[in-house]
């Protein structure tokens, strides 16, 4: 079906860049990470004293990083294309035998775009949170965690080796855990947080083992060493590494089969969903695969697996997004689906990397906008998340509505909104690989049109289905300004990156680039996808804007019901993993106390019991003592004689 073997990717692969020493503004790479971490440390350790100014410190530190990032962007742009990979090594971190890992960073074109995304979107979301969380008593902690997240995420993308990347990787997982469970008093939130962490750990196992394979194979885990030698490794090893990294990516990016945590993760505050579970952290998987392009380019089967996982997730996310009534969960489904696109794209090789990153950036902006918009809606609706209780909000929240629409148009891919450019490129590239992949991608784009329209229709159009005590109102400026900025981004970022920023050439030295030789032309792709999107949108509009939306959800088809159950992801986990584990645990507890300890206590009891029996022979009768002496004498004599005879 998908003919992987036929593809030859040698062309378009990047030539390894020489790493330049960090000078000038680039010597501040460490500060990028340290600033937010410093903020986190102050906020988390400072206690109540920082309640007042702490959140602002949080914003400032992230903003500071953003400023440095922008300065670095300017610095990189000022350099020649071959001088844009900059390394900074602080000290040797872990070392033993041949194993040596430095606390070292690598700033290149790929990391920089991530740094920019993280710091800028991060700043916006921090600002937004000032308003969103203004009444929360634990606001300080929230900002501390957010800062921790930003720091960890920056570490993830700036690390120059896999092990340090792993630190960021789990660091963001920790931040995600803390933030999902921010309202710990709700047992659901705490459970969701734990679930996210544990499922992520499964992915982390993949990353761990991948690092081990890499070390065993290449003798180093530093990117430059690994990629430099990737050509001489055999394909089997590379495939193994690729698949393991895919497992890691699937965990972090909520891809099939480790997708189940993302929907529950919506228990966290909305800015968290926007920053972590939409814009940045969940795209770490894409970064990982894109970063490891040197491996995937030589491990075609691994790349194919990436494509398949991506495709499956695109549809799972889309289907779930179409069925959820909870606005955040619907958006989460959409996120899964969109990341599925990116994952699929990075699986396509040099024709896809750039566009995956491109889509990642645009998606980061518009999905953040959408989430923040949803947060704004919730803010005005007394934290109601059920879209069946919304409707006709466009008048009550004008700014939110307008900005949300920008995001909407971007995600469904209407030109010239940014999502159009990025998604379309991916679909186009997919066709080069296989018409089936391309076709499926286009079909999914149609579903995107449907569910996003459904969301918009249920939220902003139709009749008001509000609860009685709800008085929708627009959010304060501190929340709307980020919305506006993100809306602008949703609108123009695609064009800006593509036409002004030349993203292909920018990224090419890192991930390589090859123009897709699609069997169908670009125009055809655009036309087809637009057609599907519009059909989807129309169906959505008809079903949810024209028709009355029942407050209580109808039973729906089996697919709807399955989608509401997250396509039974939890049920599968529960019956295949969780319940057997706890059963095993209980069996082992029994085994430990009865069998293992039983043997110990049993042997003690045997000794004690034989003591009780043996002492009865000490009967107190002198004659029986004499008898045992005579018996002993017979024994002694016999033993002596027998030994002599033998």
């Amino acid at each position, binding site marked *: 079906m998908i003919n992987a073997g036929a593809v030859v990717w040698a062309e378009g692969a990047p030539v390894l860049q020489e790493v330049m020493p960090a000078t000038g503004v680039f010597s501040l790479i460490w500060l990028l990470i340290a600033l937010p971490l410093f903020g986190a440390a102050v906020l988390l350790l400072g206690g109540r004293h920082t309640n007042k100014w702490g959140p602002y410190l949080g914003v400032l530190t992230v903003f500071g990083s953003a400023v440095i990032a922008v300065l670095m962007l300017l610095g990189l742009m000022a350099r020649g294309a071959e001088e844009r990979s900059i390394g900074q090594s602080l000290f040797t971190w872990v070392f033993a035998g041949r194993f040596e890992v430095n606390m070292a960073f690598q700033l290149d074109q790929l990391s920089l775009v991530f740094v920019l995304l993280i710091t800028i979107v991060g700043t916006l979301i921090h600002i937004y949170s000032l308003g969103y969380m203004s009444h929360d008593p634990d606001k300080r902690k929230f900002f501390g965690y957010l800062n921790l997240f930003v720091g960890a995420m920056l570490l993830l993308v700036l690390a120059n080796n896999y092990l340090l990347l792993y630190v960021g990787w789990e660091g963001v997982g920790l931040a995600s855990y803390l933030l999902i469970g921010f309202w710990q008093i709700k047992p659901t939130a705490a459970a969701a947080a734990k679930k996210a962490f544990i499922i992520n750990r499964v992915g982390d196992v993949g990353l761990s083992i991948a690092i081990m394979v890499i070390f065993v194979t290449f003798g180093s885990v530093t990117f430059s060493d690994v990629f430099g030698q990737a050509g001489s490794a055999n394909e089997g090893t590379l495939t193994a590494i690729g698949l393991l990294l895919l497992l890691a990516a699937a965990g972090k990016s909520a891809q099939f089969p480790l997708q189940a945590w993302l929907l529950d993760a919506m228990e966290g505050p909305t800015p968290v969903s926007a920053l972590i579970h939409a814009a940045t952290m969940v795209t770490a998987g894409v970064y990982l695969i894109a970063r490891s392009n040197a491996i995937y380019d030589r491990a075609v089967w691994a790349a194919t697996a990436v494509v398949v996982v991506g495709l499956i997730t695109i549809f799972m996310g889309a289907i779930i997004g179409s069925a959820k009534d909870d606005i955040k969960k619907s958006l989460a489904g959409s996120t899964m689906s969109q990341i599925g696109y990116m994952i699929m794209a990075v699986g396509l090789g040099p024709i896809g990397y750039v566009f995956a990153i491109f889509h990642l950036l645009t998606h980061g902006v518009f999905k953040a906008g959408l989430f923040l918009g949803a947060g704004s809606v919730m803010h005005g609706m007394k934290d109601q998340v059920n879209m069946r209780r919304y409707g006709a909000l466009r008048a009550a929240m004008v700014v939110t509505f307008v900005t949300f629409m920008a995001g909407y148009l971007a995600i469904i891919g209407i030109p010239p909104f940014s999502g159009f450019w990025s998604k379309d490129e991916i679909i186009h590239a997919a066709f080069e690989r296989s018409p089936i992949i391309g076709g499926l991608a286009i079909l999914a784009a149609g579903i995107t049109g449907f569910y996003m329209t459904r969301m918009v229709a249920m939220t902003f159009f139709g009749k008001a289905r509000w609860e009685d005590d709800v008085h929708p109102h627009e959010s304060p400026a501190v929340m709307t300004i980020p919305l506006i900025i993100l809306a602008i981004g949703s609108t123009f970022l695609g064009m800006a990156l593509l036409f002004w920023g030349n993203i292909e050439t920018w990224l090419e030295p890192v991930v390589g680039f090859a123009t897709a030789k699609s069997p169908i032309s670009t125009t055809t792709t655009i036309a087809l996808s637009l057609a599907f999107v519009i059909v989807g949108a129309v169906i959505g509009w008809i079903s949810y804007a024209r028709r009355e939306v029942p407050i209580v959800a109808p039973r729906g088809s089996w697919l709807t019901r399955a989608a509401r159950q997250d396509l039974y992801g939890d049920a599968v986990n529960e019956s295949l993993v969780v319940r057997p584990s706890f059963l095993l645990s209980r069996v082992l507890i029994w085994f430990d106390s009865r069998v293992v300890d039983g043997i110990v206590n049993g042997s003690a009891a045997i000794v004690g019991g034989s003591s009780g029996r043996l*002492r*009865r022979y*000490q*009967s*107190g*009768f*002198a*004659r029986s003592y*004499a*008898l045992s002496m*005579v018996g002993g004498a017979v024994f002694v004599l016999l033993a002596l004689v027998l030994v002599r005879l033998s």
Partner: protein
Amino acid sequence: MNPSNYVILSAVLFTIGAVGVLVRRNAIIVFMCVELMLNAANLAFVAFARMNGNLDGQVVAFFVMVVAASEVVVGLAIIVTIFRTRRSASIDEPNLLKY
């Protein structure tokens, strides 16, 4: 006459004495059985002295008699003490110390 017959005889007497210790309950009889065993040993010593052609065995037997005499004194004193306390010379009766 092979002197080893005496030794066999002594073995028989020794064994009878030993069995007597095991089966009799009267402490005095038990003690007499022990004396019989000592006598058996003496017989063996005397017989061996003759076989070996030196007098050491006879000397030993002589000493054994002395030792046995002292032992008898001490033993009977103990038995009498017990008897006075318990009005019984059975060695099964003092049976408080056990297990």
